């Protein structure tokens, strides 16, 4: 058994492999000089497919894929993601590529800029715009954050047709069929940049993760504030007490242990560095009631940051946790965040990490 870690950076993609999740061999760069803001490894196929959301710099964005772990790359002639003509919109960046569950083989979701959700039924070769969200009357009020206005999180529920998305800005929305009836699910999450500090929608939710034990329990790292919902997003409660700061970008949850999640706090939006310059991962095992700092193997004097998709977990037991930084370092933990080892350093800014067990 081999664990694969796909590392999307601002200037290419690297693939790391390990048999013990402690020592890693690095293969790359692939797609050199291209920005890889989204990456996924679809293990539901006979051979794993690496999907990458590529920004070619001068030449625009697209989705490309490899069925031989980076040996060759393919893309759809006219682009896997194309806004329909009547929208008058153009794809700016692919922010998220999310294979659905094993029960829906071939289905892959994409979250994009401008704010849009896309569904593929052919493994990511071509996507269709989810009109129900695109045509939502709230869309004109969803403002771009510093990185652009995008659907950056897509969470299909394996046990139902419900899909939850998160946007910066816009907040959390859910649909019971993944197509229609999108309703805001951000009540209780703050929006310090709006006149109404707790609006129904419009929040700058940075990332959302679903708890292993209950699809209605989710965790959100917000633009100030860490939150938990136990009712599918209808109400959120703060869980940041015990953290050194409530700002940050990623939140990830264990796929096997209920109540377990990790965040990487930063000081504040105007000071996007780890508190005291110490890169740390904080873990909860009780749904956010308490947090424990993980320091072993993580650096001091690290005036860097961790972006929203530069943190992920794997499906191993115990859960592996991976963190990538804007100064090009990647750290792996094979023991649920107790200790970390260095996977790679001196890479370009790490934008996206995804782990898969091959």
């Amino acid at each position, binding site marked *: 058994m081999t664990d694969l870690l796909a590392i999307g950076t601002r200037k290419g993609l690297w693939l790391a492999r390990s048999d013990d999740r402690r020592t890693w061999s690095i293969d790359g760069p692939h797609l050199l000089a291209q920005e890889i803001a989204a990456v996924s490894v679809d293990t539901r196929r006979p051979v794993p497919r690496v999907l990458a959301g590529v920004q*070619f*710099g*001068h*030449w*625009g964005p*697209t989705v490309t894929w490899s069925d031989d772990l980076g040996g060759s790359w393919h*893309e759809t*002639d*006219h*682009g896997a993601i*194309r*806004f329909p*003509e009547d929208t*008058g*919109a*153009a*794809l700016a960046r692919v922010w998220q590529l999310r294979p659905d569950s094993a029960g829906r083989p071939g289905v892959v979701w994409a979250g994009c800029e401008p704010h849009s959700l896309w569904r593929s039924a052919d493994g990511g070769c071509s996507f269709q715009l989810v009109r129900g969200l695109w045509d939502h009357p709230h869309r004109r009020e969803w403002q771009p954050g510093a990185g652009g206005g995008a659907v950056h999180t897509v969470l299909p529920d394996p046990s139902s047709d419900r899909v939850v998305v998160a946007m910066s800005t816009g907040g959390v929305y859910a649909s019971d069929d993944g197509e229609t009836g999108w309703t805001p699910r951000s009540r209780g999450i703050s929006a310090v940049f709006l006149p109404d500090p707790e609006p129904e929608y419009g929040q700058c939710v940075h990332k959302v993760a679903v708890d292993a034990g209950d699809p209605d329990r989710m965790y959100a790292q917000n633009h100030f504030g860490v939150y938990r919902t136990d009712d599918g997003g209808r109400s959120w409660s703060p869980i940041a007490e015990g953290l050194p700061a409530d700002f940050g970008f990623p939140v990830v949850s264990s796929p096997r242990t209920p109540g377990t999640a990790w965040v990487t706090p930063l000081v504040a939006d105007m000071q996007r560095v780890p508190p005291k310059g110490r890169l740390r991962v904080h873990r909860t095992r009780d749904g956010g009631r308490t947090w424990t700092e993980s320091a072993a193997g993580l650096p001091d004097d690290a005036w860097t940051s961790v972006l929203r998709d530069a943190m992920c977990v794997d499906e191993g037991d115990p859960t592996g946790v991976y963190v990538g930084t804007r100064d090009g370092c990647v750290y792996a933990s094979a023991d649920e965040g107790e200790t970390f080892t260095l996977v790679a350093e001196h890479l370009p800014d790490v934008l996206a990490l995804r782990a898969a067990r091959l």
Partner: protein
Amino acid sequence: MSVEVVLPGALADLAGGARHLAVDLPGATLGDLLDELAVRHPLLDRRLRDETGTLRRFVNVYVDGEDVRYEGMLAAAVRDGAVVQVLPSVAGG
């Protein structure tokens, strides 16, 4: 009429490896030329234009040495025997 398209090396693979393309052009504008190129090399077109048909921001196109931004963009006239050069702008990091 026929025109010559000159591509940067980074895009040659999307046109069968050639940097110089001879294109028989049914129309008379840059838009007509790009539409014709899109039929033959759709991935190349995707690099030059977004799905609205707009030239990408950092793609510069010169018709006989003239920047099409000052010649009507896609409406820029392309004469028989013209040389149409595609260059990446100074951008990136």
